[in-house]
């Protein structure tokens, strides 16, 4: 803001120089870190790309055949989780921002944030010990009565540790993330817009539909994507809860489920050696690329929306 073509240049003080240099240095550290992560991932992955079943015992034919089902499982589980979590999160965010009594709102927000405070291992323990046995009867019922629907095809899992349960756990984990951001955005809706809508006789829902949601849409999208990114990379909870067998299937309630990349790394890394380690790191690279692509798409959507809606 001071660099405009001003005729008088401000004197550069030594303090200024040191401070701005260190700021630039810190910024570059991020560059260096990322470059290091990327370099390491790529270098370590190269042996895996050319390896076949002979070199690495966990490969059947080649790397791509190995990583394919994992990519599918990762995206499928995360998408399911988002599908469950997004409507609920928007509901919670609206409840806290526009429905709950004012005094309670921040306390309720804190309560939801508490969910984010639970470490993923604990979610894993809870998923195995409480959630899976609790939903198993429901799954049996679904398979018995709605088995004609392809997603609910049997045979039902005897333990409830299916991809749907994993997605439920993931949903619970990302709800606080999506809620927190949406809530903030909803609260920032210009009060004048809201009051104008109410003054015109709109009901509370109509006010929300016409004033709050359009304003918050970019925020909701970026929140959803942040949640999706978290769900894609979530490791321990999935590794512990999911009965992973590596098949590609859309069926939600059977014992045969695709694994996810992150969970697979956690499961196989402890016993991995030799070229198997490279294979696992290469799957990590793929996961990195997938999350990166998701983030990029989201940023693009938000940027486009922001131009048109005039919000922010």
């Amino acid at each position, binding site marked *: 803001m001071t660099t405009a073509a001003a005729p008088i240049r401000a004197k550069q003080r030594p303090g200024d120089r040191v401070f701005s240099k260190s700021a630039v240095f810190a910024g570059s550290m991020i560059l260096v870190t990322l470059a290091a992560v990327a370099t390491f991932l790529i270098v370590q992955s190269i042996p895996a790309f050319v390896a076949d079943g002979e070199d690495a015992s966990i490969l059947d034919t080649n790397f791509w055949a190995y990583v394919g089902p994992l990519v599918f499982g990762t995206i499928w589980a995360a998408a399911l989780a988002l599908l469950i979590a997004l409507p609920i999160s928007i509901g919670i965010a609206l409840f806290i921002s526009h429905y709950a009594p004012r005094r309670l709102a921040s306390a309720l927000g804190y309560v939801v944030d508490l969910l984010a405070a639970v470490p993923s291992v604990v979610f894993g323990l*809870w998923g195995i010990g409480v959630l899976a046995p609790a939903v198993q009867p429901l799954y049996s019922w679904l398979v018995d009565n709605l088995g004609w629907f392809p997603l609910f095809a049997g045979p039902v899992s005897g333990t409830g540790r299916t991809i749907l349960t994993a997605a439920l756990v993931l949903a619970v984990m990302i709800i606080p993330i999506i809620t927190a951001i949406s809530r903030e955005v909803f609260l920032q809706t210009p009060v004048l817009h809201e009051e104008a809508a109410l003054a015109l006789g709109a009901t509370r829902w109509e006010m929300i539909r016409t004033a709050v949601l359009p304003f918050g849409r970019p925020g909701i999208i970026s929140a959803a994507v942040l949640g999706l990114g978290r769900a894609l990379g979530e490791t321990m909870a999935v590794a512990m809860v999911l009965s992973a067998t590596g098949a590609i299937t859309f069926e939600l309630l059977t014992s045969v489920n695709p694994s996810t990349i992150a969970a697979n790394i956690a499961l196989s890394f402890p016993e991995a050696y030799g070229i198997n380690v490279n294979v696992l790191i290469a799957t990590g690279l793929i996961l990195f690329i997938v999350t990166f692509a998701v983030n990029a798409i989201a940023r693009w959507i938000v940027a486009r929306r922001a131009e048109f809606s005039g919000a922010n």
Partner: protein
Amino acid sequence: MTTTITPPETRGPAAAPVSNSLTAGKLPNGAPWMVLGASLLVSAGLFGVIALSGAEFNWVGTFVVAAIIYVATITLLSRIVEGGRRSTDRFVTALVTGAFLLAMIPLISLSITVVTFGLNRFDVEFFTYSMRNVTGEGGGALHAIIGTVLMTGTAALISIPIGLMTSIYLVEYGRGRLARGITFLVDVMTGIPSIVAGLFAYALFAIFWGPGTRTGIAGAVALAVLMIPVVVRSSEEMLRLVPVELREAAYALGVPKWLTIVKVVLPTSIAGITTGIMLSIARVIGETAPLLIAAGFTNSVNYDMTEGRMQSLPVFVYTQYANQGNPPEAYLDRAWAAALTLILIVMVLNLVARLVARFFAPKYGR
């Protein structure tokens, strides 16, 4: 005839109902509660009859059916009395409240599970013993608590200066390609899956100390990689909230830019920044996968960040669960107690962050 208080139907065409939110009928204030109570009773009655036939009383079913009855009744009732628009509003209100209550279920279930199981071993021994030479019952998590504090602390020492200075650069100095690039890279970094950060730190330190090395510092680096983008993000938001007028006022008084930042911008936003940092610590303190890979696990106390494996609370939970010995209950109790400890730590951090935000918020009006 005193029984017909309501006006008779045949009052002529002049009183044709004009649907208007101001003149349309309105349900009494207590109506939703009454409907809710009635729905619960009906549902309970329904399941009570089923339970009579020998089956166990189905609590979950009761509440689910009650919720469905409630939503249907209140919408229908409102449609009849209040008209379509209000009925939609009631419907959405019920849904939104329902969403909130739905999210409370896992939270309550989790809290009950963690507290009931966790309290079994939430004793003095748990906080004063490590697992060295302990098999079976007894033992504690002191080594894990120390490891968590050391590694998270080191991660914070690495990432707070870098993150804060980067956000200052982005907000106060950054122009053009480098700034855009860094913004972009911070976004990318936010997307690094935690397990990839662990793999990275593991491989990085394998270069210096040889393959297979797992140290506390490697764990700290993995956590820092995850923490930096969060710190940058939240601090950036907070710095941008500082009104430009404050900076310009400082410049106009001849204050150097760096002093303006240190003396004006940072103090104004310090509450938000601290909150962001606290939350980022809370975010990484529960990370399991990267620490499992980068720092490994051990049964003994280790204060040396650069030598030997270091246990941490989340990994302790995991290893106690995954490598149960005999008797398994002792291991599970320790796992739950550690989970409880971990959640309490994160809760306290969150609470402190909020208090900081409240008490140190800038004094200028909004």
